[in-house]
């Protein structure tokens, strides 16, 4: 089993290889849209859908994708699914789409997806790819929702405001079609620097849990070999 294949098999995990908390990938939507739980949930689910579909497609089509131009193909696949999703959101989730703004089209620039496609899609068959990408996408979703929950609670004192935006338009009561502007208690938490600080704190807490309680112990611990000098000229 090659190193890349090993990574593809073992690396997909909610905890040890979380795309947001460990790899720190795809941070711009995470930081920008995690101000409310509804936004975070909306973008997280959208990203997860594009994530899984793109990975499976790339895996199915891997025989036809030339190695040299693979990133172009990957981007094209992601962009097509993003476009479809964007149109669907416009049709059924228009208020939510307005809330998310530019970050829906920007899903196709999410590097967490691209790097995952690169790692697994060229190696695995589509079933394993679907399982792995679902795990990674769930990790992304959980991280963004966790961040959004904390931020929304600190900023407004409530959680899951405007939940009606998560209903598709046919079921949405016409009165509540736009997002309410709730009273903000601590508006710094609504700004992106707060998201960055909070993300840093969450990563620190995760690392502390890993090191203190051994949550990360199932991961293969590589013992760092001391560097041995090949040739020593004289004493140092």
């Amino acid at each position, binding site marked *: 089993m090659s190193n890349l294949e090993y990574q593809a098999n073992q690396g997909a995990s909610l905890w040890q290889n979380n795309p947001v908390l460990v790899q720190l990938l795809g941070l711009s939507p995470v930081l920008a849209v995690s101000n409310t739980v509804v936004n975070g949930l909306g973008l997280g689910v959208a990203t997860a859908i594009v994530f899984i579909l793109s990975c499976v497609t790339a895996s199915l089509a891997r025989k036809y994708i030339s190695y040299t131009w693979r990133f172009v193909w990957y981007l094209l696949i992601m962009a097509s699914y993003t476009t479809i999703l964007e149109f669907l959101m416009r049709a059924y989730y228009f208020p939510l789409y307005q809330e998310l703004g530019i970050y829906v089209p920007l899903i196709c620039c999410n590097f967490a997806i691209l790097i995952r496609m690169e790692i697994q899609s060229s190696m695995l068959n589509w079933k394993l790819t679907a399982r792995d990408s679902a795990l990674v996408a769930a990790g992304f979703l959980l991280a963004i929702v966790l961040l959004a929950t904390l931020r929304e609670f600190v900023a407004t004192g409530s959680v899951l405001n405007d939940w009606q935006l998560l209903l598709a338009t046919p079921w949405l009561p016409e009165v509540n079609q736009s997002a309410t502007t709730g009273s903000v208690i601590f508006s*710094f938490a609504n*700004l992106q620097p707060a998201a960055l*600080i909070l993300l*840093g704190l969450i990563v620190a807490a995760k690392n502390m849990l890993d090191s203190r309680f051994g949550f990360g112990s199932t991961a293969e611990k590589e013992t760092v070999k001391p560097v041995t000098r090949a040739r020593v000229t004289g004493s140092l």
Partner: protein
Amino acid sequence: MQSLAACSPLQHSRLTIGRIMLLVVVACIPGISMATWFFGYGLIINIGLAICVALALEAAILTIRQKNVRLHLADNSALVTAVLFGIAIPPGCPWWIVVIGIFFAIVVAKHIYGGLGQNPFNPAMCGYLLLLLSFPLEMASWYLPSGSLLEQQSFNPLSWSGLQQSMLLSMPFLAVDSISMHASIDGLAMATPLAEFNMAGKSALLAAQESGLSIFARTSGTGWELVNIGYLLGGLFLLYRRIISWHIPLSLIVTVGLLAMFFYAPGSSAAYGTPYLHLFGSATMIGAFFIATDPVSAATTNKGKIVYGIVIGCAIYAIRVWGSYLDSIALAVLFGNFCAPALDHFCRPRIYGHGRSKELGS
């Protein structure tokens, strides 16, 4: 670790970090007492509360980080942070605002980055900016000394001091009746006169001045000049004791003064304010001597310090005149802190025996 090669006439410098920090606090006293006299003792309450919370938080964090609490508390850095923070926020603001700001300053801006000596940004200004971004209304509620609100003709010596403000603060139920407020306006939201000049609009201010407000009068009872002179004296004391070097304050003040002179258009609208207003009607002095000279987050080389002062001075003037924030010291100093590592990198002093290879003839 390599031992330092030192040669024999050795003298122990008695300046420990704790002593330096204590001297900084002492140097703040003239300015603080002036401000208390003119604006009431809300400032003292702020500073006292900030000190208590800061020391408690510092001790708690040091315990969590398993450091020697007594040793690290004695370096007084939390004390300086608390004092500068207490000066920056408006007197009479709610207590929880002070607590939130100090928490951010001590815990996030200082200890999460690794404690004293590791923080890339000035902790007091980080806490202040957090409050400015989060609670703009509370942070903008500065009160003028009541003297400047009275009509010019009804002059009352007591009212020029902050005594009325203090009494209002401690006995709010007496406010309307026994301490009569003569003026129809009972307060203006401002951090410094400069902020009012910039924000509340030139027209409103001119109208207020016509109706007898003396915010900018040079002989004013508003006290801003005297407060700034108090901080200037404190800064000169620090210079005299060689706690700070002259590079940062001088270049900062000169930059602000020159820019204010350059953009001041006398005779026309004079919209940007006089150089005098920029230097003495604002927080420039405390910023130049106490905040920008924070030894941890400022540039360290002498050349770097001069550029650092110029950068902060330009930022102060630009944000004041073309920006929309109250006073710009905090933002400008944080901007300077961003630049400080680069300045240190590009302004390295020449090491003796290295460089100038042509002159050395090698």
